[in-house]
């Protein structure tokens, strides 16, 4: 069952078109990977899915993104409420300069959760992000005292605390060492039982390791989209074959 469906999505920065007519279905409780060389539009496309491109000036989007039976780009939609349902984790870990606890509690607090519920949300989110055991004794310490890998898991926990339906990860492991990366990949495999996960990665091995479906982007076009196995073993498009076999990119 698909949770997000895009229909003929185009994106323009001023006059330059960055995404060309992309239509795809993202399946619920699966990991979908977006791959492609730098500048192919995969991150831009990811940010379309929770309206993060709204904060960029001179950026125009046409087409439809259907989530929960509504079009996200309908003029009546409040992007804040969308981002509550479709959370995002960024390339560089970006915890707030607050305590570990306050980082996780930031969004639930804002979205009106009661004080007594917060402890539970913080604990559950950190557990789901596989960080609880490492930080349970120092929740009041600064989040910036954590290592890079821990900070990124904290950011995942912060997103989980929103109780979203979809989690978008924009090259979330590219700034991390292999062990931290492995931990996060492991984590994502567990998280997909509860959430739908969409990752952007320029690491093809990562996509082949963890993704159920893979989409290959090139110069703003969606070239090929299929199960990961099919993309990596029997791609239908020659450009895909060239990319996954390392001829360019």
């Amino acid at each position, binding site marked *: 069952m698909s949770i997000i469906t895009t229909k003929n999505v185009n994106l323009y920065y001023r006059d330059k078109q960055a995404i060309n007519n992309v239509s795809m279905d993202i399946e619920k409780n699966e990991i979908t990977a977006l791959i492609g060389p730098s500048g192919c539009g995969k991150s831009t496309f990811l940010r379309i899915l929770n309206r993060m491109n709204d904060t960029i000036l001179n950026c125009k989007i046409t087409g439809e993104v259907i989530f929960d039976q509504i079009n996200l780009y309908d003029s009546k939609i409040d992007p804040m409420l969308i*981002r509550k349902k479709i959370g995002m984790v960024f390339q560089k870990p970006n915890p707030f300069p607050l305590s570990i606890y306050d980082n996780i509690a930031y969004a639930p607090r804002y979205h009106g959760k009661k004080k007594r519920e917060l402890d539970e949300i913080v604990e559950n989110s950190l557990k789901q992000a596989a960080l609880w055991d490492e930080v349970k004794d120092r929740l009041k310490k600064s989040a910036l005292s954590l290592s890079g890998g821990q900070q990124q898991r904290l950011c995942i926990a912060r997103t989980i605390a929103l109780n979203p339906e979809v989690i978008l990860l924009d090259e979330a492991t590219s700034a991390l060492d292999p062990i931290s990366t492995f931990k996060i990949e492991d984590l994502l495999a567990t998280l997909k039982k509860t959430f739908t996960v969409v990752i952007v990665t320029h690491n093809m091995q990562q996509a082949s390791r963890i993704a159920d479906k893979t989409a290959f982007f090139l110069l703003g076009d969606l070239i090929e989209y299929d199960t990961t196995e099919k993309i990596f073993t029997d791609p239908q498009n020659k450009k895909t074959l060239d990319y996954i076999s390392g001829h360019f990119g």
Partner: protein
Amino acid sequence: MTKNRYEKQIRPGIITVRALIYSVTVAIISLVVAIIVYLTIKGLPYINWEFLSTAPSRLNDTYGIAPMIINTLYTVMLTLILSIPLGIGTAIYLQEYSRPGKIVSAFRGAIEILAGIPSIVYGLFGLAFFVNALNIGSGTGSLLSGALTCTLIVLPTMIRTTEEALLQVNPTYREAAYSLGASKLHIIRTILLPNALPGIVVAVILSIGRVVSESAALLYTAGVDYTMPTNYVKHMVEPGAGLTVQLYLYATEGGSPDWVPYAMATVLMILVFVINLSANLIAGLFKKKVSYR
């Protein structure tokens, strides 16, 4: 023995530059020390509790500066109360809400020009507008008129410095907060302002310094009365000379012993020092409370 290729070499150019840098530093430091020592020698012996706590009296030929200290602090407080919300509000608008365009860049240009206008021009405007047209307080000026004029003087710096401070906040915090579905107002309140606070405190300190040292504009707008205020609320619309204005009058009009201006200058110096120190302390406390760094 062959010369080691990696041995330290002393190049004459570097020595010249170093000598230049050191001598400039020494010159500046000795200048500051000279001013402080000179003022202290000429003024400090005359500073006592009586000088600090009484009003001057022509009848008894005594010189006290309590009313001037009160007037200066009063003007500083009023100015800050008026300028902090205005300045920070404008900076937030410019940085977070306004869309870049001709109007906004014209506005920024205007602020830049305002920051460079001599304060006596503001004084003249204050005299014409606050004192004569609006007639705030007495016909010779009032502390409120003075503070309003000072607000105009410090606002450009306050806006610019606060804007700079907001700009310095790590943009990834903003992005993270947006991705968590927080509204702009919430992000400003919980992320931007706490993190920009050190910069905002700098803006406030600069403004305090500007007001304490202001004399030309206040001479026009705040009047020259030096009696002790009786009612502190009503004092707002009464004329009153601050330390700098009275210092100017004593130094130029004569009639007072030579030591009076020096003693006042020393007090001014100490006052500025104390205000800066306490502003920094307050900022430090705030910073610890709201953010971890």
